[in-house]
């Protein structure tokens, strides 16, 4: 998961920071100050706005090959909404969306639950040094690049190189980690491993920020450690749960690396259109169907936008009520 997409503030905070500075300086200062933002915004237009606009533009064209007599000449012609019509009828693409959505619905709560458990345990442990040691150990996976983590787990799952299949046999279970039934579990576990420490750190810092006098009050009222965690600590760090939830959802929507590597180990299970980004990638670079890939990108962007918006609305309404 890239940090770029990984750490975002819930947009709530934007409201506070859009208030302009109260004093008004002479305009020359402000003009010079505005110049400092120019490199960023010029670059932003170049690597964010233009590509999206270009993708929209590309998505309404299509390549027709009209070299009927062995002359494989092809021309790009305007196609209107043909690509979109095709995309809406593309069952494999929508199936990949549903596949990933189902996976997310199961994997994200488990992943966040485990991170939260780790964070609560770390918050409950006594002794600075012991806490520091465990925090460091749990953060080890954060230092492993995502693609390397995926390769390592594929080797661990592999019956030839990894100990996991043998361990399964030992307890009488004959597991093939790449079989269609287990595959998502294998990928889910790999993602838990990659993000556990990172999410734990966000939740743990939020737990440290919980007002100690509230915890004291709960203690005086006779609440046990479990009760305190459930009724006091967790509600108090809801913000960080929403944050990590949002990070997880966005990460899941663009899931690509992990299934791609699993495809290397088991191409018959992990098909080319296993996830939405994989569909786009293989449409563009294997089928050379750039225009169609552009249309799929635009569609996926719209779906992701709607998802994020709905999630944001849902969680903030819950928090307000």
């Amino acid at each position, binding site marked *: 998961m890239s940090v770029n997409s990984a750490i975002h503030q819930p947009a709530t905070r934007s409201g506070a920071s859009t208030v302009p500075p109260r004093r008004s300086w002479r305009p020359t200062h402000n003009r010079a100050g505005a110049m*400092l933002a120019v490199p960023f915004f010029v670059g932003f237009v170049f690597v964010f706005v233009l590509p999206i606009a*270009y993708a929209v533009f590309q998505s309404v064209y299509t390549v027709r090959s009209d070299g009927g007599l062995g002359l494989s000449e092809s021309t790009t012609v305007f196609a209107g909404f043909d690509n979109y019509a095709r995309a809406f009828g593309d069952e494999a693409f929508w199936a990949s969306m549903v596949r990933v959505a189902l996976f997310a619905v199961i994997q994200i709560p488990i992943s966040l639950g485990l991170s939260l*458990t780790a964070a609560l345990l770390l918050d409950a442990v006594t002794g600075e040094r012991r806490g520091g040691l465990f925090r460091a*150990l749990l953060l080890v996976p954060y230092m492993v690049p*995502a693609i*390397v983590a995926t390769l390592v787990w594929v080797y661990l799952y592999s019956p030839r*190189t990894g100990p996991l299949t043998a361990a399964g046999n030992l307890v009488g279970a004959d597991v093939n980690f790449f079989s269609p039934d287990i595959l998502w579990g294998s990928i889910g576990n790999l993602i838990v*491993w990659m993000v556990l420490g990172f999410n734990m*750190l966000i939740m743990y810092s939020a737990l440290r920020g919980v007002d100690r006098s509230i915890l004291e009050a709960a203690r005086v009222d006779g609440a046990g450690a479990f009760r305190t965690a459930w009724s006091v600590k967790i509600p108090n760090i809801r913000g960080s749960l929403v944050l990590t939830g949002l990070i997880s959802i966005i990460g899941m929507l663009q899931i690509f690396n992990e299934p791609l590597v699993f495809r*290397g180990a088991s191409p018959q299970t992990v098909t080319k259109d296993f996830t939405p980004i994989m569909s786009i990638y293989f449409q563009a670079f294997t089928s050379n169907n750039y225009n169609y890939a552009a249309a799929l990108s635009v569609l996926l962007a719209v779906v992701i936008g709607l998802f994020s918006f709905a999630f944001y609305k849902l969680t903030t309404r819950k928090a307000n009520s």
Partner: protein
Amino acid sequence: MTAVLPEKPTRETRDREATTAPATKRRKPRNREQFVVMIGLILFALYSVAPVWWLIVNSTKNRRDLYNTNGLWFGEFNLWNNLSSLFTYNNGVFLRWMGNTILYAGGGALVCTIISVAAGYSLSKFNYRGRGVGLAVVIGSFLVPSTLITVPLFLLFSQIGLVDTIWSVLIPLFISPFGVYLAKTYVDGTIPDELLEAARLDGSGEFRTFIQIVMPMMRTGAATVFILLFVSNWNNFFLPLTMLRGSDKWTVGVGLYSWFVDKNQSYVDLTALTITGALISVIPLAIVLISMQRYWRTGVTLGALK
């Protein structure tokens, strides 16, 4: 692995602990609670560390031991041989990948940090038309997954002939809305308006103030932005995979992936090389993260505090 804690301490115990609790004088229930906590943490720690342990152990094995010995313990110690074949395979292409990755991750993060600090400072301390919109754009684009932009970016770059050059990877890394937002938050917190006012009264121009006063004060903030971008760049796999064709420009991630895929198709077994290479590729990132941990910890937690 849930934190079900066995017994509630009595009220007096807790009260006493709350006021004067020297670590040595803990009562039994507290001990039992700690026992459960420790068990849970040890399980989590084992889970987190075991795959890395496997990676270290297996990078010391030769091909025969890789398939025939217990994966969690050493066989014949063969690390030096593995390293020398890793570094010499295909004219040392692995070292080239490492160098490329350092260039993309480090160079990209460095330029991006400078651009981000300048923009964050501008958005924080000045008032001009478009500032509010600019800020909204920055925050809004956090939600756009970078992977999604990559294929459209490829279409655009292939139109202007940038594809398969180092710039096709570097330029997208120069721009990070997240970096700008983080920098702005730091400027909000560390640069007092009075200081800027004083510099103005002394006749310092805005650019001079930025370079001579603001930049030195932003050292911690800039380091945090840099390290988070560096990690994110080092992890980036999709961008180089999409943009680069020639293996001389690849990152270590793309290179290892190509070896991993090759082992299924060709007669050479690259598995041992891939495993050793994977271990080596972790080292630079680990060094940077460990030596600069106080910076990225604050960066990660910034979103959660408040």
